[in-house]
């Protein structure tokens, strides 16, 4: 299920990003947010509630659309362009930190 609907400008060269290991087809000039939500319904999980999140303001102000690279870097999906070879995660890599006391 897609969340966003493309209404034009579809005559652009394609590119592929990987999201949680799976290839996702995008177009040159897409933001990561558009790339992910043109084929999926959400970007990440809320930390404090049960719901999935898919961004809110699209202008870099609300900070609701952060996703992660496989190396743990954070990317704000609304203000980062999709690029070939990107490997994106929609859950926090720190979830795998060992818990120690």
């Amino acid at each position: 299920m897609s969340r966003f609907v493309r209404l034009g400008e579809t005559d652009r060269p394609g590119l592929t990003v990987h999201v949680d290991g799976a290839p996702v087809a995008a177009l040159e000039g897409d933001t990561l947010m558009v790339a992910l939500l043109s084929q999926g319904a959400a970007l990440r999980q809320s930390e404090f509630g049960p719901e999935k999140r898919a961004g809110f303001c699209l202008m870099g102000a609300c900070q609701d659309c952060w996703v992660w690279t496989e190396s743990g870097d954070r990317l704000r999906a609304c203000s980062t362009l999709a690029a070939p070879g990107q490997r994106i995660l929609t859950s926090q890599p720190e979830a795998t930190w060992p818990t120690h006391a």
Partner: protein
Amino acid sequence: MADPRIIIVGAGPAGTRAAEACVQAGIRPVVLDEGRRDGGQIYRRQPDNFTRPYAKLYGTEAPRAQALHETFDGLKDRIDYRAETLVWNIADGHVRTATRTMESALPFDALLLCTGATDRLMPVKGWQFAGSYSLGGAQVALKSQAVSIGHKVVFMGSGPLLYLVASQYVQAGADVVAVLDTAPYSARIKALPDLLAVPSVLWNGVALTLALKRAGVMVRNSVKPLEILGNAEDGVSGIRFRVGAGAEQTIACDAVAMGHHLRPETQLADLARCAFAFDPVTRQWLPERDGDGRSSVAGVYLAGDGAKILGARSAEASGRLTALAALGDLGLPVDKGEMASLRGDVGTYAKFARGLATAFPWPAEQAGVLPDEAILCRCEGVTAGDLRAVMRETGAKEANRAKAFSRVGMGRCQGRYCGLAAAELIAAQAGVPVEQVGRLRGQAPVKPLNISIGDTDA
């Protein structure tokens, strides 16, 4: 004296016109822009490989958008333009900037804050679900990416942007299910005298509403939003509301664009230690400034919607006016006659903006009746009931105090999207005027700052 160092923050209509004035005075300003390209939000430019013409992107404002972009393009070699650069703090006569990896301190003699606006939001139960977007966000999706935020979209809230974005969606071929305006139609009649200050913009607004109705879009006034329906996994599935005192209605949709006009981005003015005052018309705390844009802090100037929401046309005028004021203060010759004329323009737009505030009132009363289970702060997942419980237990009735105890406004967005509604809820619960609740103090970093910033080995 060496050339004065002028820093302009923002490259929208105010920032662009301010930069132009500096260049004309022989100064090469630094222009810091969070965006990838100039234009700001209102005249945001689409990526290079997009082909839609100006008329399609900006409608009635196409000539202004094009003129502004062309002005900026003409300035590019004569300004120090730094795109994708965040100003994360201001101290001791320096702005602190951050790019993805670099942190820098830039000294200034004059700092022009042209920081623009974000949507003003009144929370609705369910607004945390995926598929709820800010109205401005919905417009950005279309304007800069040619996408709709959903397959069936409801526009809900109030303000001129509500009708503008809804019509842009219709024209672009999106399925717009309804436009739900919380303002009563009568408010618009009441506002007419002020709105007539800028008749062309008033007429554009009327035309938009007619176009929506012609396109078969349900348009309702006096709407009381009750709930954005949906679930945690799939997001938005519908909206529940009432019209006036009428029966509850439910509409199916998978996206809601919501907003109640705009709020200025004042964090940098706050960090620059500018004084603020409560504006009873918009029920917002705004940085104080004189008629030419001088803040309470010497060398710090405020222009455009980042200081007060007066619209894009006013931003162009105030950007130029404020730059001229700064240049004059720095001892450069400026045209006093032009400044007087710009002041007149800004005054006209101020009258119109007052009309808009009357026509599309901020529904403050909705915060007070927000159900306990409704999420108030999206970042921290704090509900209206959580805040009320904290108030009952601790007696907190000041904005920063309530934040400290409840976490409302303590998350990533720093209260941009919940702060105004939280203040109204606190005021309603405590039975005090909202100005007594105070305002959330701005705290650096203005946007999240990576811990590896400035790490040369990274």
